[in-house]
């Protein structure tokens, strides 16, 4: 059986499974999208954020 037929039988055949996997994929996509955008933001603004320069001003007393 080809990949297309396997995927069809696994996901698309029953509407309940289809909708459920759509929501599950939306959940995973939301998390992935957020972390991806955050990682891009941090790399784009590297050295400008407080968490990057905090060690210059605050010495943790150990």
């Amino acid at each position, binding site marked *: 059986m080809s990949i*297309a037929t396997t995927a*069809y039988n696994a*996901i698309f055949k029953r509407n309940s499974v289809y909708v459920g996997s759509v929501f599950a994929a*939306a959940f995973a996509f939301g998390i992935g999208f957020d972390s991806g955008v955050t990682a891009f933001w941090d790399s784009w603004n590297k050295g400008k954020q407080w968490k990057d320069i905090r060690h210059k001003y605050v010495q943790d007393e150990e």
Partner: protein
Amino acid sequence: MASFQAVKKSINLVPTVRALPSGVPAAPLLNLKTRAPADHHGHGHGSSGPRSDVPPSWVGGVSKSHYSLSTKTYTTVLPATGFQQRLLHTSAVVQDAPEVPDFSNYRAPNTDNNRTLSYFMVGTMGVLSASVAKSSVSEFLKTMAASADVLALAKVEVDLSAIPEGKNVIIKWRGKPVFIRHRTQSEIEEARSADWKTFRDPEPDEARAKKPEWLVMLGVCTHLGCVPIGEAGDFGGWFCPCHGSHYDISGRARKGPAPLNLEVPAHDFNDAEGKLVIG
């Protein structure tokens, strides 16, 4: 006779049949459908049967339209001699489904891939829409949440090591006084041994103090909102000077007009740093 001739010449009789411009004779009241009655004549000489010389209507007959007067015969009589089928003709060959091109070159050899791709694209659209809807709703709900500066003011940290045993501390939290008492062992026993089920607002001491030696309460009298005085009253706890409510060492209303026990705010102990976090 001569006079008759003269009369005949002087009168124009209307012709019974005239011709239309198309050449068809117009006979307005001429009913060509009339046939001889198939039954008896009905005028007294008995049954005679249909006339034998009238052809039946399915054979054909004369018909009149607005433009033509025609006669048709629906029966076919085979030609008597010289019949020959004409095989040479210029008309198109009759096909089963004419004018339909051959699409076989354009048809997908395997429709499973196309079906799965279509469902996949629809599902991807659904995933994106669901993500957009979810983030719209959650971002809108975030606008109703308290901002960071409000949240920072909503909590108070108290260093518990600065409070010796048997002492009260009053701090301000969200504009209200909060009593913190470091209870002695005898006070804890007194609070726990009291028969709390008979009180006005029955509540065990275990439900009020998360740690038995620390009692944290809002310092607002439940009667009318005065601030009670610590280490006073008949029960060794708090006493409200306004209307004389007495609270015991667990902050429970024991005497006077107060209807409820002193309220315990949400609080947590930070054991690592020895701090109390109210809020």
